[in-house]
């Protein structure tokens, strides 16, 4: 690809923080994923798209260590991934199930801090900061059931940031939100990622979202899931909901991805 903006991916294997080497997954008689090779560089923002049922979420679960591959290998900082780690945070799409409904927003964010053994007053200060970071200042005492979907997803993002992770794995985090909330969160999230220099693996079914957010977009083909296309996104950062989406490069990538999905679904 010809894009050489400041966010362009470095994919040299030695630099990879998270890597799949010929990873495949067979469950029973069904082959879900086959021969996935993917190296994610530190600080890179990789988006994954593909037709439904192509194994996007399963790929994320392999990277998370929630599932183990039946072929090949998944490595984190060079070591094989055997189970989930606090250094790799996961933001689930269904915030309603992922948050603890009996805990307030603040107490949800405090959960990782409790297991990390932070003192109580230190925790409270951290939670304050995190809630402010995701724009939930003053909402800490609310229960998830009393918050809108967008606010609940912010709580989950804050809880993941509380882990101080090196990698964020996001499974269609904005998929269940309305368009306005979604665009707002996209920009806020890009700001957070830039500030925390965290590596992000972002699963979405929204092609424009993938281009808008990512340094690189991976397209998966279904049955079995495998890498079909990899596009480097050369768009300058910070990105802008209007100008970025009107950039000729954006339109070119959009066209390429739509064509790819049309072929993949055919």
């Amino acid at each position, binding site marked *: 690809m010809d894009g050489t903006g400041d966010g362009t991916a470095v994919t040299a294997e030695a630099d990879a923080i998270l890597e799949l080497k010929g990873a495949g997954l067979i469950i029973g008689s069904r082959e879900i994923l086959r021969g996935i090779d993917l190296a994610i560089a530190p600080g890179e923002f990789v988006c994954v798209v593909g037709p439904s049922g192509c194994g996007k979420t399963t790929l994320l679960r392999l990277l998370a260590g*929630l599932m183990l591959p039946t072929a090949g290998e998944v490595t984190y900082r060079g070591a094989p991934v055997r189970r989930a780690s*606090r250094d790799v945070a*996961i933001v689930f799409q269904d915030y309603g199930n992922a948050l*603890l409904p*009996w*805990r307030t927003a603040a107490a949800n964010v405090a959960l990782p801090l409790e297991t990390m053994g932070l003192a109580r007053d230190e925790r409270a200060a951290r939670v304050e900061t995190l809630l402010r970071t995701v724009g939930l200042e003053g909402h800490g005492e609310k*229960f998830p*059931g*009393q918050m809108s979907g967008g606010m609940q997803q912010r709580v989950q993002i804050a809880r993941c940031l509380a882990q101080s992770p090196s990698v964020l794995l996001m499974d269609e985090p904005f998929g269940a939100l309305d368009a306005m909330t979604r665009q707002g969160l996209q920009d806020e999230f890009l700001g957070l990622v830039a500030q925390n220099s965290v590596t992000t693996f972002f699963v979405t079914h929204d092609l424009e979202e993938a281009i808008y957010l990512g340094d690189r977009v991976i397209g998966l083909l279904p049955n079995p899931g495998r890498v079909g296309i990899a596009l480097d996104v050369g768009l300058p950062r910070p990105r802008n909901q209007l100008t970025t989406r009107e950039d000729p490069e954006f339109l070119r990538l959009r066209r390429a991805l739509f064509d790819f999905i049309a072929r993949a679904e055919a």
Partner: protein
Amino acid sequence: MSGRAAQRIDLRGMVLPVALVAAAELLVRSRGLRSDAIAAPSEVLLAWLRALVDGTLLSATAETLACAVAGLAIGFTLGVVLGTIFGLRGLVDELMEVTIEAIRPIPPVALIPIALLVYGFGYRLEIAIVVFATLWPAMIFTRTAIRGIAPRLFEVAKALELSPRERIFKIVIPAALPQIFVALRLSAAISLIVAVTVEVTANTIGLGHEMMMAQSSLHPDLMLALLVWTGVLGWMINAAMLLAQRLLFPSSIAERTGEAAR
């Protein structure tokens, strides 16, 4: 009753019971009915006051409640522990299923003859039967509640690297707690029912026994006073439990109604 509780009770609901009591009083008085089974409400109230003053009411109540509470404490705790194990470990659950389904349907009262041989009359007999009766609802509610926890929460626990201890005390128990508390309410009601049943059928302590004594000595007023008192006790236990539930789980109520917790 406090002002707040009185507000919540719809006074129209009181019309029928008051009318029935008044009618009973009138009927017994006007016809001059004399019976071994019936007494005028006023006589029942007097008998209750007499039992209160001479201390038999309070000591019998203490005996019954002691058995019910002790049995409930043991049976419920055991049930929650077993339910947690069965809920988290599917294999254990499958291994135990037939055994438990064979034992569970036994009516607790049917164990009185055996328990009588083992323990003789007294507290231990009654507590043992209450334990058997309250164990099952606690176990089944806990198991079902834990099975029903969203698998996502267990993944969150894994992703956060919670220790097994943290997983149980920060995720499993709080998630299952509202349902476990419903089991506690049910079990509390059952514990009183079973305690009184054991006293009526066999034991020589408590309200049930006093009731049988009043019956066999032809004191229908005292017998009915004890009966009504037992009902009032059960009502009070349930009301206290409901209040506790409202205070303990504001978040789950808020979640269900979507309203503010307070």
